[in-house]
């Protein structure tokens, strides 16, 4: 697996590049984290004092080297603004995001694959159009709109689900999942169309393929043909689409995190970028970057594993 090796080597290099980029770009953003911490009413002297306390008056390369050294040895520092250890903060937020992403993904896969299959098998019939167009329309509706609608209906009116994604401490897994249900649902609504379209495309190819026709001529029912042949052949090409969605679910959730009060990594990324909280920002960017690359790689590997043609090389 030379490809895997080459890609793995690229990961730290890309991350290094990203960290430099983050450092340099944040430096260019106007604003001052010391001022943010102390508020606008604090005196200029206090702010200057805090700056030097935080080491912000050192030259950029020196600060970068310091940060890099610390980061690599596991000392991720303290958040400038929140004053808590960055590592705990980032990893906690990441864990929260991952839980939500995992739930959303777990719902997304069967729903999107199911709808994609239904659409593909019945392609160019009304069901297909319904799935395709509604998937597109939902995908085009910002998640904060669907989110609020879900909240108003299910949390405020019906009170079936809590409005906040955060369960009280020590809740059982079931309760926690209940809290995550609405945000996960709004994400599923957002992403289903995209994945379903990919599955559908695969399903159309598969259902019209000679092997599906052959299976039917062997006396299998439609359903058997779909289950045995179409399902796998249509989901394999959709793995990269699923990877893209997983990436999005992990880092692109700022709006959902805000709306459902789910302190996740997306919101942390935004707030630390706005506040110029560099240690937090850097760590968040690195962790997310790593995760992104792992996901893309995993999607590629999954594709290779699932598709025997690639897994086992070209024809012998």
């Amino acid at each position, binding site marked *: 697996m030379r490809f895997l090796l080459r890609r793995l080597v690229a990961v730290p290099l890309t991350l290094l590049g990203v960290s430099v980029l983050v450092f340099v770009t944040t430096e260019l953003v106007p604003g001052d984290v010391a001022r943010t911490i102390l508020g606008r009413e604090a005196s200029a002297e206090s702010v200057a004092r805090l700056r030097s306390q935080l080491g912000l008056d050192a030259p950029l390369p020196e600060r970068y080297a310091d940060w890099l050294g610390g980061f690599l040895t596991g000392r991720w520092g303290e958040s400038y603004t929140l004053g808590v250890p960055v590592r705990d903060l980032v990893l906690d937020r990441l864990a929260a995001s991952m839980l939500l992403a995992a739930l959303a993904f777990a719902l997304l896969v069967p729903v999107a694959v199911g709808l994609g299959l239904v659409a593909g098998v019945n392609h160019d019939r009304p069901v297909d159009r319904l799935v395709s167009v509604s998937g597109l329309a939902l995908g085009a509706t910002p998640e904060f709109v669907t989110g609020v609608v879900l909240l108003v209906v299910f949390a405020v009116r019906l009170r079936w689900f809590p409005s906040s994604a955060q369960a009280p401490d020590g809740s059982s897994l079931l309760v926690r999942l209940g809290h995550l249900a609405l945000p996960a649902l709004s994400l599923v609504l957002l992403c289903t169309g995209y994945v379903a379209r990919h599955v559908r495309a695969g399903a159309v190819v598969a259902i*019209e*393929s*000679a*092997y599906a*026709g*052959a*299976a*039917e*001529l*062997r*006396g*299998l*029912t439609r359903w058997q043909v779909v289950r*045995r*042949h179409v399902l*796998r*052949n249509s989901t*394999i090409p959709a793995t990269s689409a699923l990877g893209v969605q997983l990436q999005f679910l992990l880092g692109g959730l700022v709006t959902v995190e805000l709306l459902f009060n789910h302190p996740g990594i997306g919101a942390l990324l935004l707030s630390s970028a706005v506040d110029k909280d560099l240690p937090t920002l850097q760590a968040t960017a690195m962790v997310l970057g790593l995760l992104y690359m792992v996901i893309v790689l995993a999607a590629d590997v999954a594709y290779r594993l*699932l*598709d*025997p*043609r690639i897994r*086992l090389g*070209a*024809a*012998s």
Partner: protein
Amino acid sequence: MTGLRIENLSVAYAGKAAVRGVSFTVAPGQTYGLVGESGCGKTTVGRALGGQVARGGAITSGRIVVDGVDVLGLPPAGLRRWRAAALAVVHQEASASLDPTMRVGTQLAQALRARGRDRREVPELLERVRLPDPRAIARRYPHQLSGGQQQRVVIAAALAARPRLLVLDEPTTGLDATVEREILELIGELRVELAAAVVLISHDLDLVGRLCDRVGVLYAGRLVEEGPAGAVLREPAHPYPAALLAGTPRLGRTRRTHPLTPIPGHPPVPGEELAGCSFAPRCPRADALCHATAPAPSAVAVAVAVAGVPVPPVASGVAALHQASCHHPDQARRPEPRPQPPQRQPAETEPAETEPTETGPAVPESGPLLEIRGLTRRYGRTVAVDGADLVIRRGEVVGLVGESGSGKTTLARAVAGLAGRGPGTITLHGRPLHPSVTRRDPGQRRAVQMVFQNPYASLNPSHTVRVILAKAARSLGGTREPADLAREAGLDAYILDARPDRLSGGQRQRAAIARAFAGEPDLVVCDEPVSALDVSVQAGVLRLLDDRQRAGGTSYLFISHDLAVVGYLADRIAVMYQGRIVEQGPAGQVLHGPHHPYTALLVGSRRPGPPGRVSATGCPFAGTCPSRVGGLCDTSAPPARDLGQGHVVRCHLDPDRLPRRAGNSTSP
């Protein structure tokens, strides 16, 4: 009654008739061949036999009765049960009819389970289609098998059905000659054993003649002629099969002795309604009657079935009937006797045509144009071409044959300067050619041109034919206008302003040939230029290549896996095996022998031995060679033996022990 009976079957796609009123019967144990040009409805009939039509299609009329069961009248569940119990279909492309993501064994197991049988029979099934090491094969995925092996697996799945009706749709198309023969042998054996009604679909008249009892010729969705295979393929009553036969190259017939006559025009597309006979626009003998009224099927005088043709096993009186839908059935027969189909005929009946002496004087002796010495090309660790030596003389057509993967394309691309770098030299007019085309000087670029296999990819789809030809003419220093080039290639002027996607395969290949001749080349490399084409179109393109060669005295390096095609065009033939040229010499001598044991295999005079081990130092063919000399062949490289007239064979065997094309080994 038992067997298959089709009555008045019609199928339409989006309301346009693709198959019209087809009726025939097949008795159990009998094989019925369906032949015709591409698009005439063969596959559509084949699928309809299982009650299946492609999306957008519908069976508009007709009955299909198998062993008394009216298939089309079955309710969906009943149809499924019937399919499971009585039907087996082997599709056109084996690789497409196997699920790429599922192990072969699993797929067979499913086929078995559908018939209520045990999955433990899988190895047995694989063994019956003569696949080595069935257990290992069962664990593989389709792409891990060769085309021939895949086709066997599909046949195995069909066997699992113990069908009453077996439909074989082009079971050997796309397979190379040796594999094709193995598959055909297998089918021949199983046919008897199964005692099912078999429908064999093919455009290959030879093959149908060899395997079938009766033949139906489809044209534009109609059965234009039907009758015993021997009669139809030797003495066709309808001008269409006669024309098909006239356009098919056969081993032992060269362009100098038997020029092919392609059928002009092209078949009507579905929905194109003609008042009279649908073949009339292309028929040389059509008269007003033909254009005005459609002919009805009528019996052909049985007297035509000349002595010597064994009467096929007759299941019913109808089977012997020979019918044709033609107003002038007798005129289709040529005055001279048709060559006998190879079916169950000893090859010795046509010795005059395979006499090498007949082709001798046609080859002009001239100096070398291109010399290849010790050419080696690798892809990673694969050695695609391994120290090949080849000489092409001025004005000479050199045919290059060999099984798939033997390195033909790589050699051709090396000559054209597209195969990257590697050891060995190529000289043109005595001057070395740079391995990379971009480093060759304009004169050399002009001198060597290429016609590619896939007509669909070889023309830039975004340019019109005129632009393509003009660009070629300009950069190759040609003097002729696109219009002239097109006319020389037999293309109508209107085509010049069309983009390639509007052209048929044959027209594209003609355009590609016109492009190759834009700069008056000395050598044109043709890599399987006709293998993607239909029989009748192939004949036209072969004629064109022949014309262009004669007109300009251009040399060809002509590649094909089809020996008949190579034999038709080539003056000299080189045979490649695993990257090495194992034999080269005058076409007739190479084909007729004495020749290399591998060539013998290709021309069908020998059965392959069991595959064995090959050492790096010995003869690459040693593993499979039926006449292997133990020890010697395995360990030392074979010497080049000159048999005279430039006929060189690389083999340890004594020249007089080399095999000859003695007889036809494909016995029933």
